[in-house]
């Protein structure tokens, strides 16, 4: 296992989008990960303002039904993953244990044709914006390699979604996701500081941080260091205050 895995996943997602004549997006990545990871289908659930979550994309009819069940019943692997922030891997949905855990969801999901479901939160610390949910029409676990790939794809989709949100604050195009800036301690610290400075949520703070970096043609890590060093403050209306 190495950085090659990330490179391989990024190449697969970009190649798949190019073959379909579109640019890489959270939806195209969701579509492409089905083959990359080796499952029957996938869906993206995003949290919206009401906290109930909404369907963003689904690669097949089963995915759509699983998401509808989650929304109406308020239970299931995806609901648990979003609530707890940790992955929920269910290799055999229709077991005694799982019927106790999700008494309404399991029979309905089985009737829809899903036999296994694997939900990965789209998460960076306190930032939780939804989940990537994979399903299979036959039971069985994911291999450790498949779990690594699913984590990588979930991280890439989180980056893509943040890019899509960042664009709303910019006139210019956002550079493609590198997937690296999300794993740096300075970026997390600066995001925490910004959330207090601007009086916004952690998600919004990270989006504003990235927007500022892109608009000023700086790296996200460099802007983070300026914030931590108290050389830069961002005000609630998005103006910067250089010291």
């Amino acid at each position, binding site marked *: *296992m*190495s*950085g*090659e*895995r*990330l490179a391989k996943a990024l190449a697969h997602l970009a190649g798949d989008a190019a073959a379909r004549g579109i640019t890489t997006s959270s939806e195209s990545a969701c579509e492409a990960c089905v083959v990359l990871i080796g499952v029957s289908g996938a869906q993206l659930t995003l949290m919206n303002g009401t906290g109930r979550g909404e369907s963003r994309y689904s690669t097949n009819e089963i995915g759509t039904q699983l998401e509808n069940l989650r929304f109406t019943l308020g239970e299931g692997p995806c609901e648990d993953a979003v609530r707890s*922030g*940790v*992955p929920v*891997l269910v290799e055999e949905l229709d077991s005694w244990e799982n019927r106790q855990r999700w008494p309404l969801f399991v029979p309905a999901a089985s009737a829809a044709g899903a036999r296994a479901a694997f939900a990965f939160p789209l*998460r*960076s*610390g*306190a*930032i939780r914006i939804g989940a990537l949910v994979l399903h299979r029409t036959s039971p069985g676990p994911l291999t*450790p390699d498949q*779990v*690594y790939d699913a*984590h*990588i794809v979930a*991280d890439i989709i989180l980056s893509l979604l943040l890019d899509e949100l960042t664009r709303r604050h910019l006139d210019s195009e956002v550079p493609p996701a590198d*997937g690296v800036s999300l*794993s740096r*301690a300075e970026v*997390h*610290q*600066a*995001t*925490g*500081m*910004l*959330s*207090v*400075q601007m009086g916004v949520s*952690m998600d919004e703070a990270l989006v504003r941080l990235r927007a500022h970096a892109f608009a000023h043609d700086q790296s996200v890590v460099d802007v983070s260091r300026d914030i*931590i060093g108290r050389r830069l403050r961002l005000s609630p209306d998005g103006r910067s205050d250089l010291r």
Partner: protein
Amino acid sequence: MTMENLAETFVELADTLVADFDPVEFMHLLTDRCVTTLEVDAAGILLVDHHGELQVVGASTDRARLLELFELQHHQGPCMECYLTSAPVTVASFTEPPQRWPQFSSVARDAGFGALHALPMRLREQTIGALNLFSIAEGALSERTLRVAQAMADVATIGLLQAQVISRRELLAVQLQNALQSRVLIEQAKGVLAERLQLDMSRAFETMRRYSRSHNLYLSKVAEGVIAGEVDLTALAAREAADPPARRSPS
């Protein structure tokens, strides 16, 4: 290092291997115990994430953490070497030439350290990270101390894997991911606290850690509370500013 002290340490580590296991908490306990048991001055733990990148998961002081971060940024140094080769690496002196990693040595010297031992965290053929022991004095640790240190690294590795058996048979990949997510949460909370109380990052971390100990709460829970605005550390930080706690290690 007394026999009694040693036994106590292992009992304490084993005690944490229960259902309500928190990997980050465990890593912090382990680094603290390395300092008290092995007579080193600081300790840190690096774990590999699902991108194949090493991440700092636990450290007995922010100073050790900074060094490890520095090493990660430059993708070279003793801890990285230890992880890549799955073998212990000793730097008995950061001053005596030749220095194999001159940049790292110079930063380590500036931080007040004289020597470093890095031990692999290994499970069968898989290496999941490294345990790093920093000393202020130059010189290598004794064979005996190193054997105990390796035992502690092994306990840490088993602890992480044991947790997956106890908690719903999660895969190592999931377990590591959760540890790293707790770490992200703590970094974000440090930022919130640094801005809210106008502290530097080290002080923000120490304040959270002190609160977590005195209230018997996991650090990641305290971090969540700080971010949600449910934990108020103003009074604690003010007390500490007036009467800073004594430190075990260089600062």
